[in-house]
């Protein structure tokens, strides 16, 4: 940690009610920095594509939602860092927004700027279908990232994660771990229930568990992807179930709160599986000193792959490794299970 000049102590007079608040604000302004000298790069590109020699210059427009969550943050960073590795790519990235109208406005600006390819991660896929169609009509190929548009006409290629598969793989991993446990009990801490992806994850999880007749899911509560809700809902689950064998938590961000609740309750009789794949979760899995034994990926590297696809589209090329002349119209990523055995391979993709 860098040494900082100590803020001057407020004078005795300044300690009076109003003055204290003001001087506190001044002193605190030195405390807003979040920098640490822990600078190992978490967003190393995994592998270079076949055609990494500079080709025709391509301008890529990128519009995503507000990065108010670890995973979305990683999406932006992955896209930016990947674009930097290509000398022929110029990235036009918009200020993220969760407001549909605002995001539409930003995308229309990118269309007017006549970018060569558009990458859109909509805040709400259905609501942004129209502007996707508009871009396609204007002759700009659209790469739809993760949250899918209503109509396949609104995008050239869709690339995204597999929520159902995430639940499926989490269920299979837990099933294999508890294969020999009689009457095993499993608990699920889901994400926001009003999102379709949460329902898909739960569906996949339930379907996988059906293969293991000795396992029963005894409780499920939905948190809101926030640390606070993760702590609150997990505390309730721990109270409701005095003993269980495994826990699947949909999201590593809310997992910070869930693990806090588990530590506060002093419980460690079960194994925990996370979701999404944050760097913190991976470090914990590697250290192997908490209940967290695995996490199921929802890889943010999809944004880097989207840059690759956009570049290939802009240069009129295909992607290497497949016999196809054209880029596929949809690519669903695999939700790998990261455990202590393979965590080193995935550490670089873990997001903060």
């Amino acid at each position, binding site marked *: 940690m860098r040494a900082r000049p100590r803020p001057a102590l407020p004078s005795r007079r300044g300690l009076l009610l109003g003055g204290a608040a003001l001087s506190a604000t001044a002193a605190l302004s030195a405390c807003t920095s979040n920098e640490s000298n822990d600078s190992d790069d978490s967003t190393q590109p995994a592998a270079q594509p076949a055609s990494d020699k500079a080709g025709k210059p391509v301008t890529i427009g990128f519009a995503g939602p507000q990065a108010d969550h670890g995973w979305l943050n990683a999406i932006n960073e992955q896209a930016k860092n990947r674009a930097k590795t290509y000398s022929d790519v110029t990235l036009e990235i918009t200020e993220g927004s969760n407001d549909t109208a605002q995001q539409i406005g930003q995308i229309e600006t990118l269309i007017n700027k006549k970018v060569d390819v558009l990458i859109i991660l909509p805040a709400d896929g259905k609501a942004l279908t129209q502007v996707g169609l508009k871009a396609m009509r204007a002759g700009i190929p659209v790469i739809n990232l993760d949250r899918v548009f209503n109509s396949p006409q609104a995008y050239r290629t869709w690339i995204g994660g597999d929520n159902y598969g995430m639940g499926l793989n989490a269920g299979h991993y837990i099933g294999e771990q508890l294969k020999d446990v009689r009457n095993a009990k499993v608990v699920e801490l889901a994400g926001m229930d009003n999102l379709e992806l949460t329902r898909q994850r739960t569906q996949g999880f339930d379907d996988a568990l059906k293969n293991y007749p000795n396992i029963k899911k005894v409780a499920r509560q939905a948190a809101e992807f926030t640390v*606070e809700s993760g702590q609150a809902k997990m505390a309730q689950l721990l109270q409701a179930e005095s003993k269980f064998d495994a826990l699947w938590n949909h999201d590593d961000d809310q997992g910070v709160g869930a693990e806090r609740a588990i530590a506060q309750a002093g419980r460690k009789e079960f194994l925990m599986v996370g979701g999404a794949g944050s760097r913190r979760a991976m470090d914990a899995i590697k250290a192997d000193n908490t209940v967290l034994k695995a996490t199921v990926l929802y890889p943010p590297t999809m944004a880097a792959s989207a840059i690759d696809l956009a570049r290939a589209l802009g240069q009129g090329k295909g992607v290497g490794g497949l016999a196809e002349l054209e880029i596929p119209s949809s690519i669903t990523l695999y939700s790998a299970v990261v455990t202590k055995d393979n965590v080193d391979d995935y550490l670089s993709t873990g997001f903060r």
Partner: protein
Amino acid sequence: MSTGNSREPVTGVMLRKQPPPTPAQPPPPGGSVSTVLRVLDVRNLTLLAVLAALVAVGGFTEPDQFLSTDNLTLVLTQSSVIGVVTVGMTFVITSGGIDLSVGAIVALSTVWATTVATQEYGAGGILFCAVAVGVGCGLVNGLLIAYGRMVPFIATLAMLASARGLALLISDGKTQVVDSKTVLELGYEESYILGVPPLVLIFAGVTVLGWLLLKRTTFGRRTVAVGGNAEAARLAGIDVRRHRLYLYLLSGLCCGIAAFMLIVMTGSGQNTNGNLYELDAIAAAIIGGTLLSGGRGTITGSVLGVLIFTTITNIFALNNLQSDAQQIAKGAIIVAAVLVQRRPSGTTET
């Protein structure tokens, strides 16, 4: 009263026959029960009944889990953060104002108090920073409303937006994990005092202080007076503006304390913290019997309101019911509690 006027004895007698206007509340029935009733305020009895009914439901559906001391501790702990916010909110609403920014202030305080730079100063730094940011935001709210003559709804809405924005800016959307052992240990069983978590003790302390402040001090009576009729309060010699400033400072202070408690609870700071606290706190205060238009407020009622909401969540979780059902029940309870409460007060006042 025209007691000295003997020229019109008929009207004088008529006037005397009118019941004296001062005692608004019915005379207490007497005995030790009456003192309890006076402390709780009659309106709170209906809330207690609701809470008792919930406890009965919980005890009936999940007898082993629900009635355990562990679970009682859990319900109180989970009420503590929003409870402290609600105490501050009760003062503001009683004075006829509103504070929509509480959730955002809590979020900003947790984020600011858990940055790498703040954490260098240890647990004391985190506590100081959380409280100072809360008070600072409250000061801005208070100055805008009292001296900038802005409508509380608008001023605190602006604070809501900007505090959330600032929290996002500082945290960059990332979860900031707390390293301080002292802070983290406050959440563990080792630091319980006589089996009571420190967070619950803080909640209890804030509640008692709030109750005393509202019921037993000039400050409290002024708050009610400002909420009942600000102009009359001003003519009676109350510095209404300065008093309003103090109220928003108080709400900010409560948010700061709550933020520190939330840091202890979650071991982290995040810009999504305190989501919709403003609505939870307002709802708890309203079902507690505080008038949204001001002039009446009870800390006991607000705290009961908070406990009712947490108990519902707890019972639903124990019975493995999902959030959709929880939200519907929450809405129904708000309507039911307000309707039930209106009966007794309606009959005595009109």
